[in-house]
C-alpha cells in the first residue's frame, strides 16, 4: 500500500530531503516503478506490431506516390536531435528534483516541454505537407501504415506533453512532495521510452527509406 505523506511547507525550502523523507521517496518510487515498466513493455508491443505492419505495407502504394521518396531525412534528423536533447533535459529535471532543487527542475521541465513541442511541430508540418501533396493516409496502404505508426508515436508525445504541463503546475503549486516526485520520475520513464521508439522510427522508416 502507498504510504501517503505530504509536506506542504517543504516546497520552497529546497534544502534537501531528510533521511526519513529520502527513504520514503525511495519506497514511493519502487512501489510503482515495476508496474509502470510493464505498461511501457505492453506499449512497446503495440509499436512493434505497427513496425511490422509498416514493413509489410511500405511497398503497397497502389496508384499513390512512393511513400519513401516523399520523406525528408534532414527533417527527421532535426526531430531526432530535438527528442534526444529533450530526453537529456528531462533526465536533468529528475536529477534536480532528487536533489530537491525545485526551481532548477521547473526550468528543465520547461525546456523539455519546448523541445517536445518543437518536435511535434515538425511532425505536424510534415503530415500537413504530405496531405497537401495528395499523399494523405487514405491514398494507399503504405501511407496508411506510415501515418498510423508515426501518428501513434506523435499522440504519445502529445500525451507526454500534457502530463508534463500538469506536473509542472503541480510542482509549482504543491512544491516537492514525495508522491509528486515519484510521479515525475515515472513521467521521465515514459519520456525516455518515447525516445527509444523514435530510434526505431528514424531507422526503419526514414533511414531504410532513404537507403532503399
Amino acid at each position, binding site marked *: 500500500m502507498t504510504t501517503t505523506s505530504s509536506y506542504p511547507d517543504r516546497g520552497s525550502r529546497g534544502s534537501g530531503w531528510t533521511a526519513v523523507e529520502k527513504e520514503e521517496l525511495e519506497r514511493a518510487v519502487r512501489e510503482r516503478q515495476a508496474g509502470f*515498466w510493464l505498461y511501457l513493455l505492453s506499449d512497446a*508491443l503495440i509499436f512493434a506490431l505497427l513496425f511490422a505492419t509498416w514493413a509489410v505495407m511500405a511497398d503497397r502504394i497502389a496508384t499513390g506516390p512512393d511513400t519513401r521518396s516523399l520523406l525528408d531525412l534532414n527533417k527527421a534528423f532535426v526531430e531526432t536531435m530535438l527528442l534526444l536533447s529533450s530526453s*537529456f533535459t528531462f533526465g536533468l529535471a529528475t536529477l534536480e528534483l532528487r536533489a530537491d532543487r525545485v526551481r532548477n527542475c521547473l526550468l528543465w521541465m520547461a525546456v523539455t516541454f519546448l523541445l517536445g513541442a518543437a518536435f511535434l511541430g515538425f511532425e505536424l508540418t510534415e503530415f500537413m505537407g504530405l496531405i497537401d501533396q495528395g499523399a494523405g493516409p487514405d491514398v494507399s496502404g503504405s501511407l496508411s501504415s506510415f501515418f498510423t505508426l508515426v501518428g501513434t508515436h506523435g499522440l504519445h508525445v502529445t500525451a507526454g506533453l500534457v502530463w508534463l504541463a500538469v506536473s509542472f503546475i503541480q510542482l509549482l503549486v504543491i512544491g516537492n512532495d514525495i508522491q509528486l516526485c515519484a510521479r515525475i520520475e515515472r513521467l521521465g520513464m515514459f519520456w525516455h521510452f518515447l525516445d527509444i521508439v523514435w530510434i526505431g522510427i528514424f531507422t526503419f522508416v526514414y*533511414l531504410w527509406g532513404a537507403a532503399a
Partner: protein
Amino acid sequence: MSNALKSTDTEYRQGFRRLLAGLLLALALTLAAFSMVWFGLAVGRVLLISITLLAAIQMVVHLRFFLHLGAGENRKISLASGAFVLVLLVLMVAGTLWIMTDLDWRMMSAMPTG
C-alpha cells in the same frame, strides 16, 4: 545536515555523469547511422544491417543510461519481464513478416499482371 547535503551532491554528480555519458553515446550512434546514409558509406544489405545494428545498440544505451534498466531494487522483475516481452516481440514481428511474405509470394506470383 551537512552530511545529507553532501550525499545529495554526490548523487547528483553521479547521475549527471551517467546522463552525459548516455547523451554522448546516443549522439555518436545517431550521427554514425545518419552519416552512413548521407555519405553513402555502404550500400544495399550491408547498409541496412549496419544501421539496424546501430539502432539496436542505441536502444540498449537508452535503456541503460536513461531508463536505468538493470539497476535499482526492481532490476530482477524489470529484466525478466523485459526478456519475456522481447521474446513475444520477436515472435510477433518475425511471424507477421514470415506469414505476409509467404502469402504475398503465393498469391501474387500466380496472378497475371494487370
